[in-house]
């Protein structure tokens, strides 16, 4: 068995208002794409922050093989600094880790070209559309060549066409750079499309209700959404989610 890149074992998180998450066990293999699906408030984002090392569990252990500089997060909002151009935003993580400004900018330009923003290097976030800003955010996450990429509902604020195009771009980049990815969403079809493994969570306090393996290559072939395998997997995830929600209600 390959050592995991990050894992949660027996992890519980309590907030002032009560238990938010757990107990949860989850291990990520290097290069694997896992989707976390569950209703709002099930602790998906908390699980993500634990994996990122941005938050500590109340009980249980979090093991992170990917160090601080090897983990990247993309939030639901692009979270770009409005006072910086796209390339300065993308260069920021490298500059903060001590890379020379010139090298950081060169890497940022390359990362922006890779997400299709080669023509908008000098643009400010206010000049970018929602989809473009999200792409810049993705470029910033990938510029450090992370071993662990955490995506917290990154497409939630985008329209359907943009969201599908961006999903394919993320998968193409994942295939090239091979980070382990945790993708949080409450959209079942998106989860099945993106992930090799869909983990379904119960409503708060979030626990893992079950998981379903999704067959197929990382980069989905055209028409993948209409295949029998996709529909079967989506239905299985939906059923699991419905049962998990029912049991809690």
């Amino acid at each position, binding site marked *: 068995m390959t050592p995991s890149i990050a894992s949660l074992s027996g992890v519980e998180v309590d907030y002032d208002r009560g238990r938010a998450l757990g107990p949860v066990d989850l291990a990520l293999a290097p290069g694997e794409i896992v989707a976390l699906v569950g209703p709002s408030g099930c602790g998906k984002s908390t699980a993500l922050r634990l994996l990122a090392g941005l938050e500590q569990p109340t009980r249980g252990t979090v093991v992170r093989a990917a160090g*601080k500089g090897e983990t990247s*997060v993309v*939030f639901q909002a692009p*979270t770009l*600094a409005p*006072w910086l151009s796209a390339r300065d935003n993308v260069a*920021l993580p490298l500059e903060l880790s001590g890379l020379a400004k010139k090298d950081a900018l060169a890497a940022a330009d390359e990362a922006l070209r890779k997400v299709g923003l080669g023509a908008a290097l000098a643009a400010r976030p*206010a000049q970018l559309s929602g989809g473009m800003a999200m792409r810049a955010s993705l470029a910033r996450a990938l510029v450090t060549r992370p071993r662990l990429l955490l995506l917290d509902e990154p497409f939630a604020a985008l329209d359907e066409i943009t969201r599908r195009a961006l999903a394919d771009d993320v998968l193409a980049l994942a295939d090239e750079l091979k980070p382990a990815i945790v993708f949080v969403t409450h959209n079942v079809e998106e989860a099945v499309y993106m992930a090799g493994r869909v983990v379904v969570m119960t409503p708060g306090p979030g626990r893992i209700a079950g998981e379903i393996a999704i067959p197929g290559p990382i980069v989905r072939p055209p028409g993948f959404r209409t295949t029998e395998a996709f529909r079967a997997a989506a239905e299985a995830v939906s059923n699991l989610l419905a049962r998990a929600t029912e049991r809690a209600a």
Partner: protein
Amino acid sequence: MKRLLAPLILIAVLLGGWELACRALSVPPYLLPPPSAIAAAFVQSWPLLLASAWATLSTALLALVIASVCACALALAVSLNSLLEDAVRPIAVTLQVTPLVAIAPLVTIWAGIDHPERAVIGLAAVVAFFPIFSGALTGLKAVDPDLARLFDLYGATPLQRLVRLRLPSAVPALLEGHKVATGLAVIGAVVAEFVAGSGGAQGLAWRILEAYNRLQTAKVFAALVTLAVLGVVLHALMERIERRLLDSWKGR
């Protein structure tokens, strides 16, 4: 064009009515001079009014600079240390709710009886201090929490966090604070001159006092109009500067 014309027409109608009423009712000019008398007073003493306006303006701007430096430095120190903030806050609130005129005698004594202009600058600076201080403090704390999380993730040092995240995040609130403070500095300068002023500080407030003591009501109005114009122009200027800087911060 219409939107520019409407207020001008209203002002003309009001002034015309005022003039006619004064003449028809033979109102004594010391009680309410007609606009024509105010215009005459203005024409007669405009070099003096202009010099006084400049005195008030330069006092207000100097006070603004002093207030800005003190407020930004204190806000920065306080934002870096929450214990210091807890310590400073009650004092700041107490000072802020104390009326300017109430502390004017003290400031005048401390500035030296021979230097009323220093007291006026000091008092105007006190008024201008608070909007800048609270703007700077709000701004330094108004960091996008997700952006702050990214800085955690990238292992940013406290200095990097301050220079590359908190200071730039503070810019909009800081600009807003300065805009508000500019208006207050002018008001502060005028009020302070009323309370602490003497022949040594010859701003517009002094012109008003002087004319009032001689019952030259038209001159009071002329100084008042000058003050209003000064305020409007300064406000418009600050608004424009704020918008320009905010646009360049946002990259619009």
